[in-house]
């Protein structure tokens, strides 16, 4: 295991889904093929030990990116390089070996555990699958240790998932994800289905585990407040593209991209500062028919002709991070410092 700084490198990755109607219907109705570009050219890197969060609203493609990184989908173009190994070019045996180094935690605590399996068997699956334990006693001890680490009891290994609450099931998911001693965890909205107090427990747990085991996280969420607590860097996605990526502090104190600013101001004002909010126009467009040029231009108060024609590239910004916006590049936006 090398100790190179960059653990994951995603280069111009795209994923298209063919959602056309069946061939016969299309021919009879004279319709074209419909291609859904769920992810349209996304590039980022994750350094060892950090937490990169991808935020965005529904349809922005963040969950698809998570699945691409884990190998659940194959990219339509681009490359995903994990610790120097290009995932698409590697033999399937080596890929299986690679799989014990990363794992995924899912959003739905009810669907992510097999309801017919006992908890011990669920947690042990990665260990058994990669042949990491030699005796049953060793396996049992390891499962017990994992359960304790996530705040449950080793006796819970004999129970079934339905005997646990949502928060406890997420802990079981985390235990399963840790069982093969991975370096990298992809977390797809792990707390979105949980109550607020349970969410706090799980977020604290994840931070503790990260410190203890030196884990690297890719954290997907739509909740900016949660992200501000757990992420070191944040990437904002809109309609399959990355629009801004920077350190957490920079993103929240000085959001540059108009969409990021809009997302920030849309967060409900818990502190009741009585801030004025400019109501946002419109809704996310249909991903089957994305706008030309910059995907955000129909809703953007700073859009000009170039924005309608030309898709902006991600460029480095002197204040840190990268932004994909013509208005920022041309310095047309007067950026207020957020409170």
């Amino acid at each position: 295991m090398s100790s190179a700084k960059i653990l994951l490198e995603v280069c111009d990755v795209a994923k298209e889904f063919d959602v056309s109607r069946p061939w016969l219907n299309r021919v009879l109705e004279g319709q074209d093929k419909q291609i859904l570009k769920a992810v349209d050219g996304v590039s980022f890197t994750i350094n060892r030990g950090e937490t990169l969060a991808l935020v965005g609203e529904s349809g922005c493609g963040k969950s698809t990116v998570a699945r691409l990184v884990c190998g659940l989908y194959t990219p339509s173009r681009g490359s995903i390089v994990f610790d120097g190994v290009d995932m698409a070019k590697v033999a399937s045996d080596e890929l299986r070996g690679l799989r014990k180094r990363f794992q995924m935690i899912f959003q739905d605590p009810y669907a992510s555990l097999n309801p017919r399996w006992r908890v011990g068997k669920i947690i042990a699956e990665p260990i058994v699958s990669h042949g990491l334990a030699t005796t049953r006693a060793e396996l049992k001890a390891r499962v017990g240790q994992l359960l304790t680490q996530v705040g449950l009891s080793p006796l819970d290994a004999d129970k079934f998932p339905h005997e646990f609450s949502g928060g406890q099931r997420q802990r079981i998911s985390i235990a399963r994800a840790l069982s093969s001693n991975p370096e990298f965890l992809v977390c797809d909205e792990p707390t979105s289905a949980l109550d607020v107090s349970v969410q706090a427990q799980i977020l604290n747990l994840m931070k503790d585990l990260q410190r203890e085991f030196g884990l690297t996280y890719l954290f997907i969420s739509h909740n900016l407040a949660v992200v501000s607590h757990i992420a070191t860097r944040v990437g904002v996605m809109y309609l399959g593209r990355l629009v801004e990526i920077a350190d957490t502090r920079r993103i929240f104190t000085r959001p540059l991209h108009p969409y990021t600013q809009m997302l920030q101001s849309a967060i409900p004002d818990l502190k009741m500062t009585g801030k004025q909010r400019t109501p946002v126009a419109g809704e996310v467009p249909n991903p089957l028919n994305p706008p030309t040029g910059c995907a955000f231009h129909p809703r953007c108060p700073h859009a000009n002709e170039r924005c309608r024609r030309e898709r902006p590239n991600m460029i480095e910004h002197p204040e840190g991070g990268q932004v994909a916006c013509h208005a920022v590049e041309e310095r047309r936006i007067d950026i207020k410092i957020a409170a």
Partner: protein
Amino acid sequence: MTTPSVPLLQVKNLRIEFPTRRGILVAVDDISFDIAAGEVLGVVGESGAGKSLTGAAVIGLLEPPGRIAGGEIIFNGKRIDNLGFEDIRKIRGREIGAIFQDPLTSLNPLYTIGRQLTETIETHLALTHTQARARAIELLEEVGIPAADKRIDHYPHQFSGGMRQRVVISLALAANPKLIIADEPTTALDVSIQAQIITLLKKLGREHGTAVMLITHDMGVIAETADRVAVMYAGRIAEIGPVAEVIHHPQHPYTIGLMGAIPSVGDNHERLSQIDGSMPRLTAIPAGCAFNPRCTRVNDVANHRCTIERPSLLPAGKTMAACWLHDRLGQQSTAVNQHTVTV
């Protein structure tokens, strides 16, 4: 917004039970609150706290085998919890409207929204069809649907999620009700749409003078929209009071824990304060105060009172909290108290 006269909605000692073969489960245990005309009361709590059931009981949509087993619901001076099916149906829609969480299932996919709107209007108001249609278009414009006169003939699937929720709001407002029960109206929506819907609800509430019972788990939405808030835990009200007070100066240990657990942009990003354990299941609600196993202050009260006696809502600062920490009067556990131990 307070009014010295009788409140619009009075819920007194409401108790909702579910008879199951394992015994009777008490989902809502003796709660009382009022909503004044034109006020927005937020009912906040985590899943299983009983807030949705309370809303369903008020509008008479409690699903059997759940049933109201005690208490009264008084709307506009008249009792409504014991009405027959026909009587409650007349009130529903006309006096009390409802908005539910999922706009997809709240609208009938087979009918145009125009038809659904005019049907509601004609049922409750004595208008001709043409008048009803004109009013429907007015309503759609009011909730912010562009080109309302054309879109009135569209089907629900032709609208996006946020637009559908606006249509549902217009349906709820169609007959000019005095009270709207909104059960998680923004939970299924994206955060930017959520902001739009919150702004809309506030505006409509102001303009029509409609009272709203806003049920949600999202404290942020409550902070922006509500005048007062009731915090529910395990079927009981833990704290109730003006929104600014409950959020900035919570008095009940659960509310304090809850506010500490909510992440907020701009915090110092260290550990979120967490409440250990989880909400008790309905089959295993602790004796005394339902929160006592998880409470960090339980030993600050003399004589283990928290584990024996269920606290009633007591004045605490500028709010009311159901917590013995705020019991100034009777410090002895032998003090006469109306509330008996309920399990």
